[in-house]
């Protein structure tokens, strides 16, 4: 049932595009974190450090198009999932930041966005379940 809902507004092209963008994102984030030089011209270091943003923005655009082309129930499900993720995610991320500021936890802020995405994915699952 969940698979049917996922596929309802999506095309094979969407899946290949999102797979390609996520692959590119993984590659660029690896390069930015592990390979990018720690010294050199600031412009190149900045571009290298921010390079994962390009595939990420491409993925956001792809998701935007997918939701725009979905039918009204699907759009409602996405909206509910987004709201649940924000309601749960914002206090948790704020607590994370406050604990980090107090020196109680040491987690790379890069994990904030994936955590929010994970919360969104879980919320999507719940929202789909509600309208199953």
């Amino acid at each position: 049932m969940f698979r049917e809902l996922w596929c309802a507004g999506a095309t094979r092209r969407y899946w290949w595009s999102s797979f390609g963008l996520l692959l590119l994102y993984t590659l660029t984030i690896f390069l930015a974190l592990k390979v990018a030089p720690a010294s050199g011209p600031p412009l190149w270091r900045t571009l290298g450090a921010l390079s994962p943003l390009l595939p990420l923005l491409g993925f956001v655009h792809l998701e935007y198009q997918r939701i725009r082309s979905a039918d009204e129930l699907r759009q409602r499900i996405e909206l509910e999932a987004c709201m649940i993720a924000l309601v749960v995610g914002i206090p948790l991320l704020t607590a994370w930041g406050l604990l980090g500021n107090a020196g109680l936890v040491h987690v790379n802020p890069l994990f904030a966005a994936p955590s929010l995405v994970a919360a969104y994915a879980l919320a999507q699952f719940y929202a789909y379940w509600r309208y199953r």
Partner: protein
Amino acid sequence: MNNGVRALREAKGWSQGDLAERLDVSRQTVNAIETGKYDPSLPLAFRIAKLFRKSIEVIFDPQA
């Protein structure tokens, strides 16, 4: 909100998929409307009413 979409669809001998195709929505949307889990938007309600040649008030009962 109660509605008579399922009865009207079955009277036509259509599956949920058939109706979904005619309304340009997903089968899940049709199912959610029929089971009362989701109330359609006004444009979709008008499309449903037009498809079955009924008025919206006949198909959808806001009292329930």
